[in-house]
């Protein structure tokens, strides 16, 4: 008689543990991203790329009406895949945003942007997007 009740308790315990684990694993899977998330996040990214495209082609980015695309149509010849690199014009190894700032201050005769300024982030997103698919070559001159 006692053994039977012991078995019952054991089974109930196993059942309880099993359900708990099942419940947990179900809720864990629900936190992973799905296709819908990917598409939404891609749109979030592209919205910043489009913002960057506007800024890149804007005569108001610097102080002399010159826009980036005048020398860099489609952001060509910016080589984002080579950063960080030794940048001759700055005498040291820098990241891409520092060279963007060099251009803002020199040919565009304007002011630099902070690395995390939304405008800088947008510019970098556009510049990099136009160079998509090109393998990384950090340090290439």
């Amino acid at each position: 008689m006692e053994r039977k009740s012991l078995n019952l308790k054991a089974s109930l315990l196993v059942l309880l543990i099993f359900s708990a684990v099942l419940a947990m694993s179900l809720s864990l899977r629900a936190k992973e991203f799905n296709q819908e998330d990917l598409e939404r996040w891609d749109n979030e990214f592209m919205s910043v790329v489009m913002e960057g495209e506007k800024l890149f082609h804007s005569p108001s980015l610097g102080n002399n009406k010159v826009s980036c695309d005048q020398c860099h149509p489609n952001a060509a010849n910016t080589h984002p895949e080579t950063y960080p690199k030794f940048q001759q014009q700055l005498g040291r190894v820098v990241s891409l945003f520092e060279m963007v700032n060099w251009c803002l201050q020199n040919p565009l005769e304007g002011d630099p942007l902070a690395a995390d300024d939304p405008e800088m982030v947008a510019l970098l997103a556009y510049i990099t997007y136009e160079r998509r698919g090109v393998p990384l070559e950090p340090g290439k001159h």
Partner: protein
Amino acid sequence: MDRKYKFILQCAAFMATLMSCIVFAAPLGLPPVPIPPDNPITPEKVELGDKLFHDKRFSSTGEVSCANCHDRAKGFSDALPVSEGINKLKGTRNAPTVINAVYLKTQFWDGREPTLESQSAQPFINPVEMGLQNHDPILKIVQNDPEYLKLFERAFGKSGSEVTMVEVEQALATFERTLIGGNSPFDRYFYGGDKTAMSPAAIRGLDVFINQGRCVSCHVIEQTQALFTDNRFHMIGVAAHQMPKDLGELSAAVEHVRQKGADIAVLSDPKTSSLGRYAVTRDLTEIGAFKTPTLRNIELSAPYMHDGSIETLEEVVIFYNNGGRVNETDPVPELLSGGIRPLNLTDEQQSDLVEFLKALTSPEFARQ
């Protein structure tokens, strides 16, 4: 006994190598000294070159040696706007420092000589420098003077009539190759990691130098060493009013160079001198372009520019701030280098920049 002897020899050899490495190793902030394979540095050549450098007999009046215009006490320059040779004859150009000249890819303000060796032979035969007709008087002395007989033998294994201008040039160049200066307050701060080596003003000045001042592109600083020159030629607007204004004046100056040779022509006439690199290459895009000098030890070699026309570092900074003009109202020369433009530096930025330039002096050459 044998083994002990061998061991002592090995130690001695090691110490000798170590010593020569110490003597010829580059100071902090400089790359290794470039040495041509046909003229290695030896202490004997250095000693001989030093003596030749200071020998006034190699001039028509017996009063001018290399050291007249390249005086160790004056930063290996002469503190004059333009140098003075025999009988105080004035040339047209400011004496560049010899310190760190070994790192330059060409010599003279217009780069007309490719090496220290070939440069060293020119002033002897220039009418406004040592004034000799040719190198024969020099050879006469080095082939007969007892002291030189000994020194050339030691340095080259040659003496008397075996000695030619080649050996003279090689000795002078070797001496000059030892005149190197790094380890300045800037070097200790930038490469040595000593954040107290420069004053706060000089540290701010370094930031101006690299960024708003736009200096670093020509006066090069790199990640592990800094030559402060790009070894290129630029027309920055100094004495632009002296440059040929039209084809007639240009043709006359070119004719002068063709007839007399560049070395004599450019030192005898300011208008010809103003041609700069064009006198050497005849490239229209290089009219009025002069070589970027190093800024190391710049505090010691006033006055400044190829014609010594700017007296102080403060005025140099003003000149650059105005975009290559002494006064803001001066016209902008059409042939101005594309790297020169107004900088809009504040007064504080300008004085910080000057403080930075003063931090480029090597301790062994600093004024006592």
